[in-house]
């Protein structure tokens, strides 16, 4: 019998409570083909960014993603600082790296919990999220917010991490390290977990290259890429750490890479805290008066992979063009390879294994006039419009 059934995952589905639709074309339990639709949630961030001043753009891009909310400001800061060609102080570098790595820890803990939940292992879900809480509390102590920390600005950071706060951070890190041991034990010692994840959703090195996948998804298939090392920024060249890779390319390898990366993040933060003690307190930013004409590329390693920001400046106080590419955008494409041929049970955990983040991926907009509700521009027209602007700028140069 070759009749195919369409098993929809999304737009409303308990697997990922986010706006996406995966169409699994199944014969029996085996997925024969997969198609997906994203674009349920267009927000027009890139267009909005052109209307805001550089300082405001930080708050905007921070809200692209609720989980990795510092990776976008990180990449944006990198790109604008490339335009100005400014070197920020060491203290600011350390603080940036601390924020980035704390975020990686809480994002990976979140993923481990979700992966457990998707496998029906709700105990891991609740435990991982319980131990994520102290990290969020730490953010509240440092930045005043559990999410959307508003720590970054052009030329440095907004808030200092004073000496008095360092012991509290170290305490939480020690706790997280202990609990990571526990989670690693729960994941690697459980034979049922092995049976569910080993050999599932395998991506080879060639697949990663062909789909241009990034982040832990690529590193789990033995592709040794990490923006923190390949295109050094912030304090990453100043501390000792290594890129975690695994060869297998299956869901288990992805879990392994993420769990081991948490140890690296803890080590990076500890070294950055030592670095902070050496630097003068309060020396956290360089005053920037004017942003010259030009363009800058900023990259940052988000918990899910490479975040790419491209900013064109026309010398005014807001970006003339701002292009963002989030890691999930490329990682989602690997489903075409990793899900086909699997059973539905395996396909669902494979879908979750790249830790897709739809709010990062979907940023285009249908602009609607607030007064009369009429549509001003759709996604296509906005792209055309932005292409025109870019062309105009390039021709002027």
């Amino acid at each position: 019998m070759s009749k195919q059934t369409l098993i929809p995952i999304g737009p409303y589905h308990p697997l990922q409570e986010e706006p996406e639709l995966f169409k699994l074309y199944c014969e029996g339990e085996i997925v024969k083909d997969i198609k997906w639709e994203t674009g349920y949630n267009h927000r027009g961030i890139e267009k909005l960014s052109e209307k805001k001043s550089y300082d405001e753009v930080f708050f905007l891009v921070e809200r692209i993603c609720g989980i990795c909310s510092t990776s976008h400001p990180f990449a944006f800061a990198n790109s604008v600082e490339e335009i100005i060609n400014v070197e920020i102080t060491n203290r600011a570098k350390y603080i940036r790296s601390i924020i980035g790595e704390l975020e990686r820890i809480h994002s990976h803990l979140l993923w481990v919990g979700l992966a457990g939940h998707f496998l029906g292992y709700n105990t891991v879900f609740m435990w991982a999220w319980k131990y994520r809480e102290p990290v969020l509390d730490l953010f509240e102590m440092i930045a005043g917010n559990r999410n959307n920390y508003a720590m970054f600005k052009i030329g440095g950071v907004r808030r200092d991490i004073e000496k008095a706060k360092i012991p509290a951070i170290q305490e939480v890190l020690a706790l997280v390290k202990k609990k990571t041991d526990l989670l690693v034990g729960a994941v690697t010692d459980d034979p049922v977990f092995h049976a569910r994840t080993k050999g599932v959703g395998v991506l080879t090195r060639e697949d990663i290259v062909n789909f241009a996948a990034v982040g832990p998804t690529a590193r789990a298939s033995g592709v040794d890429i990490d923006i923190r090392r390949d295109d050094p920024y912030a304090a990453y060249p100043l501390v000792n750490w290594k890129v975690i890779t695994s060869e297998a390319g299956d869901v288990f390898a992805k879990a392994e890479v993420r769990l081991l990366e948490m140890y690296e993040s803890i080590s990076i933060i500890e070294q950055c805290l030592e670095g902070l003690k050496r630097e003068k307190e309060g020396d956290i930013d360089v005053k920037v008066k004017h942003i010259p004409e030009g363009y800058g590329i900023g990259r940052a390693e988000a918990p899910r992979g490479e975040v790419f920001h491209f900013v064109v400046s026309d010398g005014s106080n807001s970006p003339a063009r701002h292009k963002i590419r989030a890691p999930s955008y490329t990682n989602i494409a690997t489903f075409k390879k990793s899900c086909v041929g699997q059973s539905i049970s395996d396909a669902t955990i494979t879908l979750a294994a790249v830790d897709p983040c739809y709010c990062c991926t979907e940023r285009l907009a249908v602009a609607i006039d607030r007064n009369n509700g009429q549509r001003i521009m759709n996604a296509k027209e906005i792209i055309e419009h932005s292409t025109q602007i870019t062309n105009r700028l390039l021709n002027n140069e």
Partner: protein
Amino acid sequence: METYLFYFLIYPGFLFAAVIGAFLSWFDRKITARVQFRKGPPLLQPFYDFFKLLLVKETILPARGAKGVFLAAPVFAVFGATMAGVFILLPLMNITTGFHGDLIVIFYLLTIPSLTYVIGALSSGNPLAAVGASREMKLIMSYELTFLLVMAGIIIKSGQSIDLYQIIQIQREGSPFIGSFSGVLLFIVAIFCLQAKLALVPFDMPEAETEICDGIFIEYSGTPYAMIRLSKYMLFFILPAFIIAILMNGIKLEGIHILWAILKLLAVVLLLTLIRNTNPRVKIKQAIRFFFTWMNLLAIIAIVLAIFGL
């Protein structure tokens, strides 16, 4: 006639099994919550859930489904669970039915709820329900043989008796079957069968919320879903009660023995709860392999040991 109606409707049948089952499901949820650092629901939560579904929530019928079968399936599920409950609980409460051979009937009656779930799911016309139903069918086929082997072991241990009342009496005169080596093996196998029959993790793939959105029950809402919940509550009581009857000496409802009865029941439910909280869900293929090879092997070893009187 009145006595039988009383047995069927109130004690120890429908009402009694449902109420005790609801409390046991609260116990399961509370323990789960405590394991996961949550507070857990209040004592009466299963009743709130049930009455909200029964009285408040609207019933939505699938437009393309076979509505008659879809609505009849939950009723039969409750009916099957009640019948199985009566046959299991009467001997357990020391009331003999005088029916020799009820073990076979119980075996068939315990299959009815699962089968009606499959029929209800297939009549709903939902693709996710169809996937769930096919998984449930595969699951039934894999654990039923094992469950039958457990019963065979019990029959051999009790000296060729297929009367549940007699099996309990034999254990009372001698020692409970779980006290022997083969009894322990049969208990382990039976617990895994229960886990699959109750569709708890690691064998909850027919429902599998994060894969197929509760699969077989996806189209159920309102009163029919309340019926399904009711049958689940009842199974949550009568299946552990069945284990207690065939392996753990049954229960006595007098004096200090009431406490023992409650402890035995809670111990079995606690075991089920802990298994479901320390394992991820397995795939249907793995479940079939697990029951066909390992559990059947274990059950056969237990039977061989039982033949030699161990």
